[in-house]
């Protein structure tokens, strides 16, 4: 294959990565933005989404699309519920103290991972894609499903943006983010907002995982890379900024796709992680964010 088409292929792969990454990172960013909680277990909610998608789609017989659709609806709901319980039982009791919650979410990470290993096993299992239509480009055929991931993710991002900026729920969330004490004084149930945001963040990760699982595979350790990449995206994009998160996700996804096609993936990860650490050291508000209050 010539260089041009090769680059196009890498860019398409990168866009798929970016689409999934944007959803996952948005979840992390919302939780941090509103609750000031760094959720280290975020990657495990992603993993749970994928594992549940496998469980649901194999439980439902009939056409592959049927099982997939069921997974797309049910898996995020179950993950959201688990997150809700975790939030009520642990995070709320810690008063959302940033350092204590990091330790607690590390604990959740280990618990979820180990339970997945115990009940799901160490194998990587595939989920059948809902359709397998190939789009024929002049140089190579490309999976139609992958393109639909990009579309679905874009749709979800727009929906989230709409909820955040144009609805009452979004207003309440932004008020809590801006100043939780004043919000409380104005009768906003801050406590319930936190619970909802934590569940929503986990659900976004789960949806992203359900979308990606037909082209990758469900595995109990699959949450680690998305966690690291989401951190990178959230930091580069500026914490709590939706636009920044999306821009950074596309940037990271594309460069990750292109760099790993042409260079060693380990080297790509080293460079990306180092760059992000430097951004955090020298420009803590992110490349697109505004200075923190």
């Amino acid at each position, binding site marked *: 294959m010539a260089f041009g088409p090769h680059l196009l292929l890498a860019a398409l792969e990168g866009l798929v990565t970016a689409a999934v990454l944007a959803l996952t990172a948005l979840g992390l960013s919302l939780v941090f933005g509103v609750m000031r909680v760094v959720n280290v277990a975020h990657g495990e909610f992603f993993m749970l989404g994928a594992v549940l998608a496998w469980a649901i789609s194999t439980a439902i017989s009939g056409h592959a699309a049927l099982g997939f659709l069921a997974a797309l609806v049910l898996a995020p709901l179950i993950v959201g519920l688990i997150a809700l319980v975790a939030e009520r039982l642990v995070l709320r009791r810690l008063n959302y103290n*940033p350092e204590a919650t990091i330790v607690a979410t*590390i604990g959740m990470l280990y618990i979820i991972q180990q339970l997945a290993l115990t009940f799901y096993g160490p194998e990587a299992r595939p989920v059948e894609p809902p359709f397998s239509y190939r789009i024929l480009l002049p140089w190579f055929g490309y999976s139609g499903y992958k393109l639909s991931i990009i579309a679905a993710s874009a749709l979800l991002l727009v929906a989230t943006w709409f909820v955040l900026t144009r609805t009452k729920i979004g207003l309440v969330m932004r008020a809590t983010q801006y100043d939780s004490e004043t919000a409380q004084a104005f009768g906003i149930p801050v406590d319930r907002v936190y619970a909802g945001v934590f569940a929503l963040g986990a659900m976004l990760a789960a949806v992203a995982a359900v979308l990606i699982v037909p082209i990758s595979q469900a595995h109990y350790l699959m949450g680690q890379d998305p966690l690291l990449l989401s951190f990178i995206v959230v930091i580069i994009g500026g914490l709590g900024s939706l636009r920044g998160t999306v821009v950074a996700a596309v940037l990271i996804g594309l460069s990750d796709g292109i760099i790993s096609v042409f260079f060693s993936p380990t080297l790509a990860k080293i460079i990306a992680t180092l760059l992000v650490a430097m951004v955090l050291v020298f420009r803590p508000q992110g490349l697109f964010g505004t200075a923190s209050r």
Partner: protein
Amino acid sequence: MKEASPAKAYALHLGVIALLFGLSFVLPEYHHGLLARIMVLAVFAMGYNMLFGYVGLLSLGHAMFFSAGLYGAGLAVIHLGWSVPAAFAAGLACGTLLALAIGMLALRTSGVAFMIVTMMFAQVFYLIILYFASRTGGDQGLVVPQSARVLVVGGTSLGLTDPTVRYMSALALFSIVLLVTLAIVRSRYGRVLVAIRENEERTKMLGYDTFSNKLAAVVVSGTVCAASGAAYALLFGYVGSTFASVQYSILPLLWVLLGGAATTLGPLIGTLFMYYVVDVTSGYTSAYLLIVGIALILLVLFFPRGILGTIRQRWLGWLP
């Protein structure tokens, strides 16, 4: 907190060291070996405690300092054929230099950003070890040859694979670090660190250069962790990338939280306790990470001061 009486504190610590020395002669073989390992890892926890307990800086990347010592010493023996003392010094030097560099960068941030930055630097370190797998052995790791692990003292050569020599070397390192920690904590410098933890702005206002005090703490902490790593490589003869993974940044945090942050003996108690909990439960289940996870959550929820921290608060105010 009551003013600590120096004689009592030193007597307690020397007593603990004497107890560990005595245990060497009565413990059955299995527990003897386990305790040697626990003492080396307790040094790692003490190094972590220096920063987390006394300065209040929660790092999620201390595995890099441990593995800097581990690889610094291990690779010096394997590739360069250095003697044990030289390799140990090389491990220490690697840890000190790395801690200096990381400290200069990471201390520009604070709070949550500090945790994430240290975690990312540790991740980079881990990936670098994997990337140079031809030299470092990658995730397979390397075995430090038994023939090279010999310490020559005077005219006699002591094989570090011998259980008694290994135990006594671990105890020597542990005792030195424990007494140095106690001395640091009781010194003027130790009090400045605690002042920074309690209120950095006020300490700054009182005229202390908080940045260089914190940097010194990072370097001391990193060096102690590297000493633990170097000792681990030389005493137990294995270096591997697992020791650089996130898990090994979390474990010292768990040990210190369990034993009691900002207590000199807490790291030992925490490491000892956690090691035996995992050891006992591994008879019933392989899910040891589950226990680590549950322990972390229960600790932050119900027991944030740890074992010794609670004892100090309730009964023994003089405990250092």
